[in-house]
């Protein structure tokens, strides 16, 4: 659990974070969202002490971070950043192995762990382990970044716009996969983005920042239905109903009966209802097929299923 108590941070004259009180709950995915320069990265970086607060205290598991040995603190915190995070002179496998090696794990255990982690993020260890970062696509590089951050199984994961350098299609895929990973691992995650859609889709709880101040901290449904200020209402936008749909997955609302629909149109099992709806509208079909990751048929989903979900309050 991560707690900020009256935390401020000044850079010269700039007040990047202004009197922040925030509690990130155990095993929840907390998304920090806000316009550029609102202090999101600064908040995140105060958790692993890449930045020290000017005022106030940050706690991890009830212990003030300043009182811990900084290397020890960081070993328990995975960190994923956009762009330059991977070490270009090391292979993918060596990148993932950095922290386990630092912890002095035996070779065999490291090798197994590296394989497991690459598989977890959907990369074939045999094909990707020996590559160098510049031989990866942007999406693959970000997957490796996640694998590296998770390698030593740290309880906390900090992610600073991890998917924002990836094209929209791949970003959606990465989000879906990351959600699936998070459902099984249940880490305490602080995730920074400036993309409201991404925030709504991923978050257990969303913290909206503006000019270094926390404006609203709530579960996505509340944020969408009861924005506490015109700023938030404006920020989440007019398409709230659609945004809510992005929190439901096809898997939970489809009809598993093997498709009687002969429509060629299909969506992925792990796609969101929002994606399913836009696929239906795009193909003028009221019912479409659902397939799993390997393109095997898994059932079908119709407009009435989506309506059912929209009427339902929670996921």
């Amino acid at each position, binding site marked *: 659990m991560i707690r900020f108590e009256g935390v401020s941070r000044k850079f010269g004259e700039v007040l990047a974070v202004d009197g922040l009180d925030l509690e990130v709950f155990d095993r929840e995915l907390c998304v920090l969202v806000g316009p550029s320069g609102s202090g999101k990265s600064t908040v995140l970086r105060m958790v692993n002490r890449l930045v020290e607060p000017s005022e106030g205290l940050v706690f991890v598991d009830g212990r003030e971070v300043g009182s811990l040995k900084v*290397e020890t603190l960081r070993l328990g915190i995975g960190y994923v950043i956009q762009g*330059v*995070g*991977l*070490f*270009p002179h090391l292979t993918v496998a060596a990148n993932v192995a950095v922290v386990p090696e630092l912890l002095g794990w035996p070779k065999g255990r490291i090798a197994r762990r590296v394989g497991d982690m690459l598989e977890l993020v959907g990369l074939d260890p045999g094909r990707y382990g020996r590559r*160098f970062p510049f031989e990866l696509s942007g999406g693959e590089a970000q997957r490796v970044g996640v694998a590296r951050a998770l390698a030593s199984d740290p309880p906390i994961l900090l992610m600073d716009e991890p998917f924002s350098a990836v094209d929209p299609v791949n970003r959606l895929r990465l989000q879906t996969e990351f959600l699936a990973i998070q459902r099984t691992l249940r880490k305490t995650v602080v995730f920074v983005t400036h993309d409201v859609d991404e925030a709504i889709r991923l978050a257990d709880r969303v913290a909206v920042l503006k000019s270094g101040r926390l404006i609203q901290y709530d579960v996505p449904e509340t944020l969408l239905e009861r924005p506490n200020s015109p700023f938030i209402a404006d920020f989440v936008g007019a398409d709230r109903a659609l945004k809510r749909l992005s929190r439901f997955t096809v898997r939970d609302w489809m009809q598993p009966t093997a498709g009687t629909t002969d429509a060629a149109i299909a969506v992925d099992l792990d796609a969101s209802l929002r994606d399913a709806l836009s696929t239906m509208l795009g193909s003028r079909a009221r019912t479409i097929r659902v397939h799993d990751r390997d393109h095997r048929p898994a059932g079908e989903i119709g407009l009435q299923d989506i309506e059912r979900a929209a009427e339902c309050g929670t996921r």
Partner: protein
Amino acid sequence: MPFDFTVIARNLDYLLWGRTASGEIGGLLLTVAMAVESGIIALVLGIALALVAWRWSGWVRRILLALADLVRGVPLIFVIFWIYFLIPALFGSSVPNSRSVVIALAWFSSAAVLYSTLSGLLAIPRGQYEAGIASGLGPGRVLWSILLPQAIRNLIPSFIGLFVSLIKDTSLAFIVNVPELTYVSSQVNNRTQVYPTEIFLFAGVVYYLLCEGLTLAANSLASASRRTGKTAAKSR
């Protein structure tokens, strides 16, 4: 005047090896040995100083860079003279002349290695350092196993360039009677009297081939390693 290159053939052994057979290394072999020796010292010293200058970015760095400027601002031949006269004055006994030239060359080149290594370290994106310490590595460890390997990889061409100048600069040892290629060439010339063009043309060509060959080898090595991905073209 017709040229007679048989003088080269007749003195080839002496030009290449000097009196190496009788225990006194000389000729081209000494040229290469001096360049390699001073190159290794300069590399180790220069990189070590660059690491120190990177780690302590305040006045330590400023002092080191000022010293390096001082070293680089004096013509190499003066450094050779200083060391040639200084070492006997300080230690009483004289060291072999080739030794003092190696020290002078190493001293001079380590300043250049310090400069290029430091700028290579500073050129690595800041996110690399951050990703390192955020993983729990200490600053020294990040420097040694994350930043330095990347910097060195980018610096290999400039190190080769330095080594090529080192080879050429060993000819200054001629001034203090070290029997390297230039000196033995002039010895042969003095002995035979009539073939200066042939002899010095030959010496020049040997220097040229050595340096050019090295440069070519380095380039093809660099492009080969780029192809196999040992050199990171861009950092992620």
